[in-house]
């Protein structure tokens, strides 16, 4: 089992396989937008965020 709609094998990755990448990808994507509503509530990285005033 594993064919998707195109007749290709679905991309399956086990938990263990996915976990091997956890140390490698530590920077947020360049295009990730840190808006003021999530800067403190969600984001961990120590990045200086300019707060927009409402």
């Amino acid at each position, binding site marked *: *089992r594993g064919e*998707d709609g195109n007749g290709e094998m*679905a*991309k*399956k*990755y*086990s*938990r263990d*396989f*996915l*976990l091997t*990448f*956890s140390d*490698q*990808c*530590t*920077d*947020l*994507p360049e295009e*990730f937008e840190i808006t003021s*509503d*999530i800067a403190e*509530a*969600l*984001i*961990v*990285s120590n990045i200086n965020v300019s707060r927009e005033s409402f």
Partner: protein
Amino acid sequence: SSAKPARAVSHPLEYSWTFWFDSPAAKSRQTAWGSSMRPIYTFSTVEEFWSIYNNIHHPSKLAHRTDFYCFKHKIEPKWEDPVCANGGNWTMGISKAKLDNSWLYTLLAMIGEQFDHGEEICGAVVNVRARQEKIAMWTKNATNEGAQVSIGRQWKRLLDSNESIGFIFHDDAIKLDKGAKNKYTA
């Protein structure tokens, strides 16, 4: 001079997934349910997933009354989304000690297509609450009992859970709210 590093290979996921965030602060400014949640980022590769996950608070560090979602791209985590409308969800109460791992393992199983009926899955949400954190998995076709029970059982195995979990139809949740009963259990 150092050589330029080779471009890293990236591992595409079967689906693109979107993280959505609903904070207590945003909720308190809105009156209509669901109007304060917003999409944060859509990822399509294993590498992108970790780039986000490694830089956001895990559920145990999120403020109470926060909801954090991971749904397939273009499916809104709302009952009225056309893909969700005929669906339902499995809900699991999670102890604080197991919360972060349970959420991570749920995410990895979804994005890694580890469910036999993965095509049925819309996404998952973690509700951070003072009394009891919950994770729910939303699916598309509530009346497909076989697929729903399969998902519930596999999810329990993946999270090493022995507790009974229930499946509620979104239709019932809309009509009966807290009075909605489990149609399936696993």
